[in-house]
Every structure is written in structure tokens, then in C-alpha cells.
């Protein structure tokens, strides 16, 4: 079986589970929206701060939602010993890693789309360079999904996984938070040239951790 086929099998399984359980849709997405709402309470909308800091608020909301999405991705495997099935499936560790990363990334991208529309509508934000937003968004999301999948399997089966994953994940993705926010600021202001170094940084981060995951995931899955 080719790598792409294996990756698609795993990603398809996770996305099918989501399509039937709708946990991301019914719980993680509303959670992200509530976070956006709370920011409006924290930063008085009348002072015009919200539209100024919208990129940062957006990515904080996405990161918090990503923590939940990662937990969900491995909670699914914990039920009914599904993870044993994954281990016994004969699929390569790298394929499982890429598949689970892909599934999380797809869910996060949809979530970002909805939250992004929310930001534009509720924070009164003007969008100028859509291409920059899409590129930075995809690169950042792949990076978050890859590191999330790595830490998800690292903490899978541990009693304290719900608290451990955020503590491990959030400092690691600090550069993503920084890069994505700066790139989005440039994209919203319509100066793509300022966004490029950040998009490159995001892409580097994503490629680096995809590489680490491909190498390390198999051994972590055996131990999980």
C-alpha cells in the first residue's frame, strides 16, 4: 500500500468518526466562539481595541480549540482499545502520524474558517490580502496539528493527559502563535511583503515537526 493511501485511510477514519460523532462541530467550535465572545468582554468593544488585536485573539482561540481537538483525536483511540487496532493494523507509524495530523488539520482549518468569519463580523475587521491569510493559516495549522499529534500520542494512556497536553503543546507552538499573528496582521493590513518571513517561519516549523513526527511516532505509538 502506498504511503498516501495509508495516510488517507487513517485520516478518513478520524474524519468519519468526527462526521458521525460531531464532537468538534458541536463542542470544540462553540468553545472557540465563546472564547472570541469573552475577549469582547475583556477588551471593551467601544475602545476599538478588538479590530486592532483581532489576529492575536483569533490565534489564541484557535490554539485553545486545537488542544481540545488533539485530546479528542486520542480519546477516540482510547475507547474500546481502538489504539490496539491501530497498532496491529500493520500501518507504518509515519502513515498513522501523517493521517492523524491531516485529520486534525482539516478540522482546525474548518474551525478557523468559521472563527475567521466570526472575527470579521464581530470585531469589525477588514480583510485585504486573502492569499496571505490562507497560506499563513495552512502553514500554521499544519505545524499545530503535527506537534499536537506528537504530544497527543506521547500523553496517550497517561492518567494526567488532559492537563499534560496543554502544558507540553502551548510553549512548543509559541513561535507559531507569534508568526501566525504577525502574518495575519500584515495580511489584514494588505502588506504581504511583511508577511513572507513569517509564512516561511511557519512553513519551516511545520516541515520540521512533520519530520520529527515521521521519525518518532511509530515508537511512541508502540509505547502508548
Amino acid at each position: 500500500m502506498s504511503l498516501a493511501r495509508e495516510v488517507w485511510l487513517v485520516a478518513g477514519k478520524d474524519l468519519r468518526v468526527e462526521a458521525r460523532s460531531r464532537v468538534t462541530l458541536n463542542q470544540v467550535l462553540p468553545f472557540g466562539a465563546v472564547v472570541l465572545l469573552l475577549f469582547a468582554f475583556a477588551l471593551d468593544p467601544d475602545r476599538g481595541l478588538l479590530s486592532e488585536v483581532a489576529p492575536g485573539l483569533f490565534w489564541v482561540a484557535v490554539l485553545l480549540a486545537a488542544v481540545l481537538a488533539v485530546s479528542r483525536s486520542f480519546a477516540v483511540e482510547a475507547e474500546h482499545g481502538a489504539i490496539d487496532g491501530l497498532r496491529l493494523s500493520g500501518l507504518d507509524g509515519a502513515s498513522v502520524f501523517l493521517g492523524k495530523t491531516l485529520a486534525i488539520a482539516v478540522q482546525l482549518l474548518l474551525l478557523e474558517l468559521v472563527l475567521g468569519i466570526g472575527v470579521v463580523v464581530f470585531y469589525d475587521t477588514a480583510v485585504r490580502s486573502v492569499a496571505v491569510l490562507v497560506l499563513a493559516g495552512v502553514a500554521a495549522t499544519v505545524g499545530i496539528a503535527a506537534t499536537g499529534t506528537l504530544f497527543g500520542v506521547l500523553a496517550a494512556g497517561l492518567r494526567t493527559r488532559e492537563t499534560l497536553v496543554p502544558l507540553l503543546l502551548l510553549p512548543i507552538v509559541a513561535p507559531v502563535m507569534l508568526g501566525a499573528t504577525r502574518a495575519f496582521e500584515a495580511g489584514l493590513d494588505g502588506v504581504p511583503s511583511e508577511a513572507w518571513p513569517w509564512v516561511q517561519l511557519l512553513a519551516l516549523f511545520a516541515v520540521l515537526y512533520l519530520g520529527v513526527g515521521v521519525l518518532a511516532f511509530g515508537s511512541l505509538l508502540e509505547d502508548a
Partner: protein
Amino acid sequence: MISLARPAVNALGLLTLVALFVLAVLALGVVPPDAVQGDAQRLMYVHVPAAWLAYLAFFVTAVSSALYLWPRTRQPGWDLLAGSSAEIGVIFTGLTLVLGSLWGRPVWGAWWVWDARLVTTAVLFFLYLGYLALRRVPADPDVRARRAAIAALIAFVDVPIVHFSVNWWRTLHQEATVFNPDLDAQIEGSMAWTLLFAVVAFTLAYGYLMARRVQLARLEEGREERELDAAIAARVASGSERTDLEDRVPGEGTGKGNIGDPAVAGAGEHR
């Protein structure tokens, strides 16, 4: 593999103590105060070596973790070394932040500024705090060691990215004074020598702390083995009669999550 003999450790400890005392005398009494910053600048003699020590410790953690993961050099000792070094690294990263904060208040006028190096150091602190938290979760020693080693490398790979991204973002911290790009040390003689001495003294302290930490871990391991032996002997002695031995099986109260945590403590954890 890496444990020093007890007299050697004690000698190292004494040497460290003397070096730190001499450092205190030099930094507080002998070296002149900074022309601009006055006495506040004397914090440099602890702030800079603390930062050096933190980086050294995390570097040792990364190397030990890599050596543990490499099949040919896989030995439990490397895992022990990685964990011990990370503990010391986190403490000294915290110390670097606190000392820097104390220095920043009189010089920059604020306890904290959002400068590149400060932010990088803070991220580093939390990265390795997470690593230590992962180590504290009980599990089969081999599994936990492998998991921790991979987590350490994941964190280590992040350090340069954090560094560069934050550098692009903002910079207020003074440029490196000694190891600047021109290799032209802009520091007065006696200050430079005191700083160098401080780095040496802190490195000695690192060596001593590591040696003690490894000693401690060995003792913990020994106690666990003895407790396990005692529990097995007790069960054998009681014959087929079932007792409440579960309550006395080692792992309980052995300093949960310390480096040498027993397999038994987390046997149920490993699925």
C-alpha cells in the same frame, strides 16, 4: 556509568563552595561598580553565569536524550542524566529570569520588558517545565525514558525557532558583550575576569549538583529494589494465604515521580 565516588563528589562540593565564596568577594568587593549602572550591574556576575548554566544543562539533556534513543548507546544512565540535568536547568532558568528582573528594575525601569531574550528564556522555562511534568508521570521505566527522551528532543528543536522568531519580533536586551559578532570584547579587564571566574564557579556548581542528583537517584533505585525484595519475601513467607500486600508494595510514598520511580508504581498505567 556516570556516578562519581563519594569522596570525589565531596571534594567537588568543597571546591564549588570555595569558588562561589571567592566569586562573592570578587563581585561585591573587588571589582569596581559600573560607570553608568552603578552597583546594580554587579548582578551580572550571577545573572550571566546562571543563564550559561541553564543552557549548558539543557544541552546536556538533549545530548543524553539522543544517546538514550540511539540503540547502540541505550543505557538507563543517559535517561537519568537527562532528567537530572533538566531539573537543574529549569531551576537556573527560573533564577536567570528572577535575577534579570531584579537587574532590569533599576536599569530599564521595569521588572519585565517584552524583549527577545527575556521572552525566549521564559518559553524555555515552560518548555522544560512540561518535560519535567511528563517525567513525573509514573510508567514503566523503559517506556518513560523513551517518551521523555523524545519529548526532550522535540523541545530542543524548538529552541532555535523560538529564538529567531522572537528576535525578529523585538529586541531591547543589550547585545552580547563578550561574544559579539566582531569578537571584540567590550568589557573592562577586571570585570571580564570576574565574569569568567563566575562562569567557571557556576559550572563547578552544576557538576556538583549533577553528581548529587545522580547519587540520590541511585539511592532511590536501591531502596525500591530492597522494598520490592522485602515485599516478595513477605508474600513468599505468607504462603498461599492472601494478605493486604498490595498496600505495602513499593512505589507508594517513594517520592512520587522522582527520577528513579519504580516500574511498579505505574504498572497499571502502562497499557
